[in-house]
């Protein structure tokens, strides 16, 4: 394709020499955060931030727009809620189970969709996610419209109780930080470089001997797995798994978060997730206006603000450094 790709590679340095400063800043934010902001809100934002970062592996670094990522978030959320509530598993096992389910689902859907590209890929992933939605609507274990309610948070490794919001927050923050650093490492690994090569010019990557389809599939499964991790944790944080997480609107929301924060940047999706989640919090009593505002942000981002918040910031930063 001769057209400009969705992501902007100049936003993030390609070689692995990114400074550790942003990560230290992130750690500080995570530590200071709960003394300034309500922890449950922070946990919600972190779950969505992880979800958006997982999604960004696909859109930002592989160039594939999946419009069905809610399937992984939702299925993992149901699975971990079911494991914790019905099977009585400890939280870490419940989360691991939910994540594995998302991984398996990602492998199946990935194998069916990865050969298509561009708009076709978006459309087909959307349809598969809708299939998952109807499955969740009708299956017995999901509780239909009610969802799975009052999921116990349990005790980590059977030792540390996660009942209090503070304890839960520390757990969520640690998992988020580890996953975030991991995503960063993967993106800057040789594997990540191949993904980028595939995104920029698939035919050329193939001619250089890389099996593009396998790399894309691996990225898809990785992205689904991490989305599943976010969903599994979310179920325990809110002690609830519901249909909201499987709807196609959720798939759209994660696209919005990533787009607003900056496609193809490391920190962008997390920033976007924070902005969108807090916006929804403040606009909650305005009812359907939330949809209108979300739609308007979408339109503005696409028309005039395609680099996103972090992408724009680092663009001007780099410009200043050079000039």
């Amino acid at each position, binding site marked *: 394709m001769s057209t400009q790709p969705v992501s902007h590679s100049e936003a993030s340095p390609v070689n692995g020499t990114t400074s550790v400063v942003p990560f230290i800043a992130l750690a500080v934010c995570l530590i200071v955060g709960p003394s300034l902001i309500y922890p449950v809100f922070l946990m919600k934002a972190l779950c969505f931030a992880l979800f958006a970062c997982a999604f960004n592996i696909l859109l930002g670094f592989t160039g594939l*727009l999946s419009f069905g990522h809610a399937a992984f978030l939702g299925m993992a959320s149901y699975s971990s809620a079911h494991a914790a509530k019905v099977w009585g598993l400890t939280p870490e096992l419940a989360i691991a189970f939910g994540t594995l389910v998302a991984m398996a689902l990602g492998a199946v859907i990935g194998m069916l969709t990865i050969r298509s590209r561009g708009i076709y890929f978006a459309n087909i992933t959307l*349809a598969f996610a809708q299939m998952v939605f109807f499955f969740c609507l009708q299956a017995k274990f999901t509780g239909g419209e009610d969802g799975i309610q009052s999921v116990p948070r349990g005790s980590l490794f059977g030792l540390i109780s996660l009942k209090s919001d503070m304890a839960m927050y520390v757990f969520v923050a640690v998992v988020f930080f580890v996953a975030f650093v991991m995503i960063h490492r993967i993106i800057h690994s040789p594997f990540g470089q191949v993904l980028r090569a595939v995104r920029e010019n698939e035919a050329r990557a193939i001619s250089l001997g890389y099996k593009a389809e396998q790399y894309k599939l691996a990225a898809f499964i990785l992205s689904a797995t991490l989305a599943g991790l976010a969903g599994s944790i979310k179920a325990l944080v809110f002690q609830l798994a519901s249909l909201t997480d499987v709807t196609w609107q959720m798939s759209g929301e994660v696209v919005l978060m990533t787009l607003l924060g900056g496609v193809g940047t490391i920190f962008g999706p997390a920033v976007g997730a924070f902005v969108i989640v807090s916006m929804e919090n403040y606009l909650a009593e305005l009812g359907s206006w939330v*949809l209108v505002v979300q*739609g308007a942000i979408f339109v503005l981002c696409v028309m005039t603000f395609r680099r996103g918040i972090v992408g724009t910031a680092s663009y001007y930063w780099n410009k200043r450094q050079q000039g």
Partner: protein
Amino acid sequence: MFEILGITSQALFGQLLIGLINGAFYAMLSLGLAVIFGMLNIINFTHGALYMIGAFVAWMLLNYLGVGYWWALVISPIVTGALGVLIERFMLSRLRDLDHLYGLLLTFGLALIFEGLFRQKFGSSGLPYRPPAELTGGTNLGFMFLPNYRAWVISFSLVVCLGTWYAIEHTRLGSYLRAATENPALVQAFGINVSRMITLTYGFGVGLAALAGVLAAPIYQVNPLMGSNIIIVVFAVVVIGGMGSILGSIITGFALGVAEGLTKVFYPEASSTVIFVIMAIVLLIRPTGLFGRSS
């Protein structure tokens, strides 16, 4: 009267009729999507919202201005089509040189705005819209009772679909359109205003969606959510039929409506997933869809 597998003929024909009705809407909507996709190379995510707006324009014409069904059938597609022209002219046309995914994202955002606005104004419960007096009542066919309005919807949508197909495949204007799809630069060089053609094509596709909306208004209620409920299924129909194929989208639209209806008779639990299952199978065997060309 007869029975198959313990199912009475009334139930069978009743569901077949519902299937045909749904199929008529699938066909009209996926036809509009196919026309737009062929010309602009984008999946029009706003399509469902515009179908909803089409129905609402008919409702508002009746309740605010006292304009009835038959006029709404003409006015609503024109008004909504004009909205489509504005969208293309001022937004989509600016994204033409970028990745086509941006077009998809823009139309998704617009769909959210429209749905949000109508939900804010009209709530999410449906508003009733009566079928016109000429089409109330029904005909007894001996094996089943056929409401006149439904017979009208099926036959009218067939005429519209086949008319569109004929116009695109067998008229001079249609040949310009197909030529511009293949090679816009060359067609432009022959002195045809391709840019305007793209805008009008989008408007036409939107008009089709609005027409489907007006037809749907007396059957389903007029509801702000009606667009987002149907659009995902229509996307699956488009994937099965093969993107961009005109005749393919019409045939698959009707066929899948019927398949859905039949599933409702024989295995009701699967009726909402059957289209997606068919989609998965088709993708495994023919990744480009039943009627699609390989890209």
